[in-house]
């Protein structure tokens, strides 16, 4: 079974890469972009288990390893 954890910087935390990309898009002439934030997506292939259990496990991984909650937040998505 598949799931993913999206890790993004907390709101208000500076995102230097996002800003550089926003600058790049401006140069490229892409208009209408008000803000860009870059995060990580961590995709998992898990052994078969009930969705509730998979979600709990991914949440736990997010807290313990995938995100540093001082500056990041995360979201779990299951297929």
């Amino acid at each position, binding site marked *: 079974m598949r799931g993913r954890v999206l890790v993004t*910087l907390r709101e*208000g*935390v*500076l*995102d*230097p890469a996002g*800003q*550089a990309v926003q*600058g790049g898009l401006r140069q490229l002439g892409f208009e209408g972009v008000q803000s860009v934030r870059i995060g990580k997506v961590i995709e998992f292939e898990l052994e078969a288990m009930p969705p509730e259990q998979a979600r709990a496990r991914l949440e736990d991984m997010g807290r313990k390893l995938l995100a*540093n*909650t*001082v*500056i990041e937040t995360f979201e779990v998505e299951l297929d």
Partner: protein
Amino acid sequence: MSPPVDREVAREHGLSESEWQLVLDRMGRTPSWVELGVISVMWSEHCSYKSSRRHLKKLPTEAPWVLQGPGENAGVIDVGEGLAACFKMESHNHPSFIEPYQGAATGVGGILRDIFTMGARPIANMNSLRFGRPEGARMRFLVAGVAAGIGGYGNCIGVPTVGGEIAFDSSYDGNILVNAFTLGVLGSDRIFRSAAAGVGSSVMYVGSKTGRDGIHGATMASEEFGADSEAKRPRVQVGDPFTEKKLLEACLELMKKDAIVAIQDMGAAGLTSSSCEMAAKGGLGIEIDCGRVPRREEGMTPYEVMLSETQERMLMVVRPGTEAEVEAIFRKWDLAVAVVGKVTDSQHVVVTDGEEVVGSIPVDLLVDAAPNYDRPRSRPVDLDERWSQTPQIPSQSPEERLLSLLAQPTITSKRWVFEQYDSTVRNGTVLGPGVADAAVVRLPDADGQPRVTSRGLAMTVDMNGRFVVLDPWRGAALGVVEAARNLACVGARPLAITDCLNFGNPEKPEVMWSFAEALEGMGAACRALRTPVVSGNVSLYNETEGRAILPTPTVGMVGVVEHIENVPGLGFRAPGDVVLVVGEPKKARWAGSECSSMAGQDGRGRPIEPDFAATLALLDGMEQIVARGWLQSSHDAAEGGLAVAVAEACLAEPALGAELDWPWTEDEMIFGEGPDVLVLSVAPEHVGSVTTELERRGLSVHRAGKVTNDGRLRWPGLDVEVSALAKAFRGGLEEALGH
């Protein structure tokens, strides 16, 4: 709109009862919310040095070559040819414990800014790191994060990391140390300073836009970690080296014009401390309109704007009429730029939000009248008893002892870490990490750009907290001596030091005693070696749950090398070369040694008394010998003693062996630590001259044997394969970190 200010709110801002009373007395009224924020950060330990100020005064800070001592963003020394070196070291211990990558990265970013604020182009970084026992997952995460963060920032901005030190000890389990050093070069007549001048002149803001980053980071650095610090979730700042690179180039470009009157980076406590310091140094007032500060986020209050610790920002006072020129340069580099205020003669820091005045504080209240404590000190009652004890070292074969020492995290090769640092960018690295006791970089031109020359700068960071905890006076002095000895190895003439004083809670009399003693010892050593202190930093409250770190007053020492083409590395070069041992190994002691720590005996004994005259003689002799190109290699004995120094000399690439016939009698002579002992290798034809030069200065020189290529280190009573040494040494850190 702002909540009312009272005693309770003041306490939450870190002000003590008496400090709050002082505020009320001096202001004659209750401060506003913004005023309280400003006062509390300016009076924090980090900004006010309230516990350390009176002790720092005892350090020597002057010499004819000192162009700028403590008091500016960094110290500056004359290095000849119209050039000057600007350097400083700073701690980022607390943020790095919470978010190691960003904490370490922003530590590097901050020290870099201190250097280019002075008008210097940064050309070399170093760092001094202390970690706890590396076995646990958390500590491994911290080591990996700190290494990656230091590299991530320095590599991106393109300043080579040329050296450093890393030690592990359980006292740092809950409080690691991340001390970052940067050195830059500038023309000696082009130093920029921070004193505001010119009433009516514009105050300009340049760099990143302000967000709500790390508000109250300065007070965080001044508080002991409690178990609730996880819950407090302070907002750690994120570093943006790309923006800093642009800021660096834009500032240096502007500095070539005649526009800047004063410049100050926004470090801890951001706009608050930069504006207050500029006003205080100029004996003037300053007015800041928060409404004009470029922002990244909406709805920020003046309180947040004044206290934000967003990185990569600078404040400048500019000459009237140059505003447009300044703006053009920063726009070209795609950076924020704005006039945010002006210099006044009011002697007040006035904060407005558009038309509305939201704070007005007398400058002297923030700086001169800031608390200045003579904290109680007490000499530990059991000190004499501990000094009289001898560490009990279990008996072991010399081979086994040597192999286990080489694999200790503190001694083993730090390649896993320093290979993550770009050490060769800027075309100046003559001796980088891992190949010598001190780093050597070629002296660039006045713009800091590479050029062909024989002159160079040598630099090192050192301190052994195990000595300091046993005897703070001797320990701190021995740290300065070790730094000098490291410069001696590359034939450099030391000129000055910077320091980073990492201690526990100053409100504990024993911690305060060790702080004061260490400063006395450091001062004595600096006076004797004629290396004044030109800059530095103090980091207190390095404790977790009441347990203090080993007192660690790290020093960074800088010297000049006249012939970079002759500087030796630490490794043996050619079979047949003669090995000389310089100094008096018999003075080495178990006290404070790696062996005593491995045996759990760290608390016992007293380190040796430094012999400054001998160190001076060594410096002088080595300078002569290296200048003439007589040395193939030189290495000093430090952690692990003489035996480890010899083993490390065998482990250069390609590894060589050695056959030594110089007899040692006690394990303590070759595994103990303390005295100035050097291991040199010299081509046979120069042995006579080298020996004469050193003996002439009263130093003992022992002809100990020769370099071989038979793959063994042989010494009476010790015979071991170099490949076994290599295995222990090269894999030690990866092993310890579980890689």
